[in-house]
């Protein structure tokens, strides 16, 4: 809440660039909105605005206003979907020049990975990449926390002299805003004017989206993950069976993905993959490089099974089982079925 009568310190608005993806808002867009609202509150109050560039996106703009954006700049035009860095880059650059926000946040999605550096180059400003941490000081300086060297080093980055301060944010790092029936305003922009004079050099001729099979990693209560120690596609099936038994999601490390044992890179957890926060994470045959463990640091309980008692993974685990996963997983499945059988017979005490 900004106090009435008392003017807040002029430190520039915080903007988030929302992404229309497959008829809805990309989850990371809500995550950066959540963090923008938290930072605005912690820094003593400032405007939080969203920019939504797309087609037939009026409904999604209202969602952003309802979720807490004070203002939503809606740029709606058939030429603006699917995403292209030249059209979106032109529109966003012009809006930023006109409105002069202090901070602009992007989701580090595939399109954010093109749009953010494009706009930063046009505006000659600083951009933090794939931030895992963000903080705004009372005088409006943005701390952008980035991980380098495979999650081994955390660096605080700043853009002290140029505005806006821009950051792309790794998906899964922040919580979306709590449900709140706030009513921001939607400002419908003149898309034709914002696109005028721009050469469109690229044409998106086809967009293919396919939801991966199985339980998605994001939001799963149980994640069953495997690493290079699994050793092949055939033993990998054990992990699929276990995940199915627990209605959980299957995740993997980069080496397991490279070996082609998993269904695809949507299953990869870590610096170049996803961040997960299940209630329970069960890891099998994972050595435990920061590359992977950075993606599970917010998991509730981490249980690791590895035949090597010195596996670094055990240092990042709550429970360590030194054993062969080929023995543990079938025993686990039997034990789980026993429990499920019991709970079918007798009503659960809860």
């Amino acid at each position, binding site marked *: 809440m900004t106090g009435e009568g008392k003017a807040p310190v002029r430190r520039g608005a915080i903007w988030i660039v929302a992404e229309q993806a497959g008829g809805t808002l990309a989850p990371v867009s809500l995550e950066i909105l959540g963090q923008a609202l938290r930072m605005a509150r912690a820094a003593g109050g400032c405007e939080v605005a969203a920019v939504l560039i797309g087609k037939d996106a009026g409904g999604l703009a209202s969602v952003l206003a309802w979720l807490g954006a004070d203002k939503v700049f809606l740029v709606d035009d058939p030429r603006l979907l699917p995403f292209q*860095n030249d059209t979106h880059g032109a529109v966003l650059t012009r809006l930023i020049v006109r409105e002069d926000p202090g901070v602009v946040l992007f989701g580090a999605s595939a399109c954010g990975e093109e749009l953010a550096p*494009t706009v930063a*180059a046009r505006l000659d400003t600083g951009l933090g990449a794939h931030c895992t941490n963000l903080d705004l000081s009372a005088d409006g300086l943005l701390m952008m926390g980035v991980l380098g060297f495979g999650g081994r080093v955390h660096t605080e980055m700043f853009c002290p002299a140029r505005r806006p301060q821009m950051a792309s944010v790794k998906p899964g790092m922040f919580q979306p805003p709590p449900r709140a029936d706030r009513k921001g305003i939607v400002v419908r922009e003149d898309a034709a004017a914002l696109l005028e004079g721009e050469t469109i050099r690229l044409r998106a001729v086809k967009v293919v989206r396919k939801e991966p099979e199985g339980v998605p990693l994001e939001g799963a209560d149980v994640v069953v993950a495997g690493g290079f120690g699994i050793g092949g596609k055939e033993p990998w099936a054990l992990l699929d069976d276990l995940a199915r038994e627990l209605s959980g999601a299957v995740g993997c490390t980069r080496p397991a993905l490279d070996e082609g044992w998993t269904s695809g890179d949507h299953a990869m957890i870590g610096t170049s993959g996803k961040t997960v926060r299940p209630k329970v994470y069960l890891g099998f045959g994972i050595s435990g490089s920061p590359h992977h463990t950075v993606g599970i640091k917010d998991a509730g*309980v981490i249980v690791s099974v590895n035949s090597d008692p010195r596996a670094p993974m055990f240092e990042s685990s709550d429970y360590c089982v030194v054993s062969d996963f080929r023995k543990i997983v079938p025993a686990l499945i039997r034990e789980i079925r026993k429990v499920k059988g019991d709970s079918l017979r007798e009503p659960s005490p809860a």
Partner: protein
Amino acid sequence: MSGFHIVVLVKPVPDPGCYDRVEIDPATGALARQGMPSVLNPSDRHALEEALSLQERHGGRVTLVSMTPESSAETLREALAMGGDEAVILSDRAFAGSDSLATSRVLAAGIAKVAPFDLVLAGNESADGGTVHVPSQVGELLGVAHLANVVRLEVDADGSVRARTRIENGYVEMEGALPMVLGVRREINTPRYTSLMGVMASQGKPIRVLGAEEIGIDGSRVGMDGSNMRPGKLSRPEYCRKGERVKGDPEEAAARIVGILRAEGVLG
């Protein structure tokens, strides 16, 4: 048109296999990475492979361009053993401490020096920094179309381009025309092995070293002074947990894990 001039951006990086040895010097707070060998950035090999297969199809020239200290010429030589006609190292004390935009300025100036070019290919990201900024920012600075996350590429003799880019749970087919700057992901191809012939041929390939003055770039626009981003404190993230050892045979261990699953409310 008889073939294209393809520029491949390459970067020697500390060997990703050694990142578990990166430490922060407690006295200076700076990164200590002594004794880490330099290798060609892994995704750059895929950019070079793509350039070489286009060269095989259409003819033309392949030039490697790298902003790196002159001392890493050996890594460039290794890249030339895989293929390519010549390499240009952009090296100057003034470049040190460049952020991604300042780096892109140096690279764009270096590319302009070897111009005219038709296509610039780069690895999507570097293993050490991993910003994915360079393909887009070099494209912007050169004033040409650009894409990142490219996983499939077709270039016709007339310069028309069809590129598939990876998005979340899918892909987009993009069309355009050269000139273009593209960042490629490792899924795009399997880089060829370096042959003994290639190693021998690389010895005769020219490696030029150019400084700030030679590429005509203003020293105040690059390096630490020309960078908008400033690094602050470094720290080592800790992921340590209590690490309780679960004892017993597989049946007992399984029973214990099931107990944990039940206690966390995800089973039964």
